[in-house]
């Protein structure tokens, strides 16, 4: 399977994503933001970091970069687009996903392990994962997801809330909400479930010496689902 990771000026999880994708069997290419064309890919990843310094608003300048038009076309044709952290912020800025990511409620950057509950497995990302809860890692200053009531209703009705912050046992309440996100939302899909934006970083959890290994489950599963 072929993947492409897009590098924006200020991306800083691009290498980590490249390492993770290759580790689990993707043939990955790194694509510069100023290129016009995407190589033939089964998966496009917008990595974490601080694209354009997150100046103006997180992800807003990257959302207007040259390559984004190709990403939009690819997504419209049903291609898989995964945005992690800053990548999620970029996806909301381009309008590929609804809502916005505001500053964390405690107005502090948060770097720690979190548990997330998988809400919808009928998609290429989570189909066949036998766990209900994954332990991943967050590292962000603007992860506080917000959308209008109408948008939220649409997300709920279409089963677009991909993952929510929860405790070890899967309870999603305010007490474990790390950043103030509405309904503990950690990640969402578009209507077709081919675009996934999420704040947690699976690429930082890919071997037993790191903060955890649940990221491995995510990537292994994604590759298997794409092969089908």
């Amino acid at each position, binding site marked *: 399977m072929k993947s492409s990771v897009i590098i924006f*000026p*200020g991306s*800083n*999880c691009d*290498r*980590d994503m490249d*390492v*993770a994708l290759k580790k689990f069997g993707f043939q990955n290419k790194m694509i510069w933001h100023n290129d016009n064309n995407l190589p033939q890919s089964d998966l496009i990843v917008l990595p*974490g*970091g*601080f694209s*354009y*310094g*997150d*100046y103006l608003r997180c992800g807003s300048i990257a959302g207007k970069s040259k390559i984004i038009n190709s990403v939009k076309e690819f997504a419209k044709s049903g291609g898989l687009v995964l945005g992690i952290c800053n990548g999620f912020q970029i996806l909301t800025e381009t309008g590929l996903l609804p809502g916005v990511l505001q500053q964390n409620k405690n107005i*502090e*950057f*948060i*770097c*720690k392990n979190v548990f997330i509950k998988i809400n919808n497995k009928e998609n290429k990302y989570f189909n066949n994962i036998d766990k209900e809860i994954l332990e991943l*890692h967050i*590292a962000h*200053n603007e992860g506080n997801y917000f959308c209008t009531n109408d948008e939220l209703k649409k997300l709920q009705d279409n089963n677009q809330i991909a993952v929510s912050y929860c405790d070890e046992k899967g309870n999603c309440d305010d007490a474990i909400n790390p950043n103030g996100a509405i309904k503990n939302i950690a990640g969402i899909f578009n209507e077709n479930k081919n675009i996934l934006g999420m704040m947690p*970083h699976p*690429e*930082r959890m*890919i071997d037993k*010496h*790191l*903060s955890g290994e649940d990221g491995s489950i995510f990537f292994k599963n994604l590759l298997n689902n794409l092969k089908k």
Partner: protein
Amino acid sequence: MTVTEKVAIDHGLKKDEFKKICELLMRVPNITELAIFSAMWNEHCSYKSSRKHLKNLHTKGKKVIQGPGENAGIIDIGDDDAIVFKIESHNHPSFIEPYQGAATGVGGIMRDVFTMGARPIANLNSIHFGSPQHKKTKNLLRGVVKGIGGYGNCIGVPTIAGQTSFDESYNGNILVNAMTLGLVNKNKIFYSKAAGIDKPVIYVGSKTGRDGIHGASMASAVFDEKIEEKKPTVQVGDPFTEKLLLEACLELMADDSIIAIQDMGAAGLTSSSVEMASKGKLGIEINLNKVPCREEKMTPYEIMLSESQERMLIVLENGKEKDAKKIFDKWDLDFAVIGKTTNSKKIELFFDQKKVAEIPIDLLAEKAPVYDRKWKKIKLPQSIKFKKQDFKALKIGDCLKKLLSNANICDKQWIWDQYDHTVMGDTIQKPGGDSGVVRIHGTSKAVAASVDSSALYCFAHPLSGGKQIVCESWRNLISVGAEPIAITNCLNFGNPEKEKNMGEFVECVQGITESSKYLEFPVVSGNVSFYNETKDKGIKPTPSIGGIGLIKNYENMVSMKLKSSGNILLVIGKTIGHLEQSIFAREILSEKKGPPPEINLFNEKNNGLSVLKLINQKLIESCHDVSLGGILVAVSKMCIKSSKGVKINQLKGLVNKFEYFFGEDQARYIVEIRKDNLTKVDKILKENSVHYDKLGSVIDNNIEFSDEFKLPIDDLEKTYKNWLRRYMVN
């Protein structure tokens, strides 16, 4: 502006110094020249008070590739890999403007490291604040932590360890020391020494603005009540540009077009151009009209003194300009040929077709003043005899809780949750352990790093204090299974013109030298920050030591997390029960006098190397060094990390329990071993003449000691973890 003695004094120069400048130049300097002298001759750039003593530091070793004198030190970690590292202070700016001060401190030290061709792989910091009750402390702490995070997180370099302390002596002068480690191929290291004549001098990075003018001279003076007025002298950081600069520089470094490269740090364009020329014994000519400026009508004076961040100066091979420019264009960074190297051995500046400065380089470097300042020796304080009744009303459990919630011991998670410590995907030991550990990407190796200081010990007796911190750094590395290799030091002191402060400096340096020589743990880089003084009140002497060690196979790394109930805990090293200068004496007995614990370098080395041997033979399950708070605090931290308990054995003989549990004797470690390994461990320790005691065994849930106390770990955890968070929220 006509330059007079008064103008020179306003620039921070002394009367004599101005006289010397006029003699050396054989004329009165013009204002731009005076600015250059004031920048190069101030304490921060010239090391005029410290140089004489720094010469004695132990700086050599088999693994040292580059010692002090370059942008950073470099050590060999095998297979052509080398680690570039340094610690640097950004104290004065951080007190005035905590966010930007701390942020640009981090930015500056990272530039020092990638200037040498290394990709930064880890950041650390040592930060010191006034008393928690002081009205400024909370905001300063919040600002500094945000600043460090704001810069490091954006660049995408993990912050893997640090140290935070509180003491009233920092009320008017906080300390912010930032450290960076970078990884470089040892055959592709870049230096700041220019070579060759008529080579283009290139300016890259951000544009020059009026920020930070006089920054270096500010860092060379004491503070008074007008300190707030100095806000404009604090630089403003732009981590995004630094990230671009990092990538662009590393891309340019992939081929052979760079002859020399130097970042523009303190004293900006002045010190970078002078240093490159001085090291290459060359001259340098700069056309200041070519310098990219962000503000209009900047004068030569302002351009030369600006401390705008994220800028580099490069001497390039002839004919490589075009290709180099392409790279910087790609990253949207300024690139300008601003001058050339010459054989004049002078710095010559041109502006609007006129020569605006001409100074022989040696007057700014070798001939800068060096002072042999007067200093006072500090005697070892007399011992204090504690009496039985001092302890009579005390309960061990209560004392422990009080110490665990003490600002200087309590959990600092509130701080490091705000630092990205996992980006780059190689952090295998996070902040909160004895050392941070990152893997060397794609290999089985890992480097451990820790940063330490012990201002109370250094204040009580600088010589012992200096020795102690080096030992503590060494122990922190051993405790994770790393072989200690080298250190970097950030020497934070008061006013060197006062004999007592100067004495503290001289004797701390002596102590550092003694330990690093004995432990073969050389100093390869560092910086000195004097004048940490406000309204006549100086800080306690605070040398910070950043230590680096190598773990050849990271599968062998250990942490302080207890593994299984039933395992045995040993205390390696002898416990005498030295309470003077301990946190127990200070906080529980309110006794601030007495000597710090004695340092026995033989035991330190022998115990450390023996523990390392045990770790490498996989005989140790977990390990933690015993430092602030003594055995009981150390054991509690191990328990809290792992949610396990410990049953402590009866003590042998008639020792005072408080001295045993809270004494801060040095050269000690607590190790967890499996029962079936005890014979092997005993044999190795005896063969190496290492003293050890059986402390107890790992159990579930509580720390217990005969009938005296039984403390649930959950309770201790809350006590340990809640203090800082509550303090910051309220």
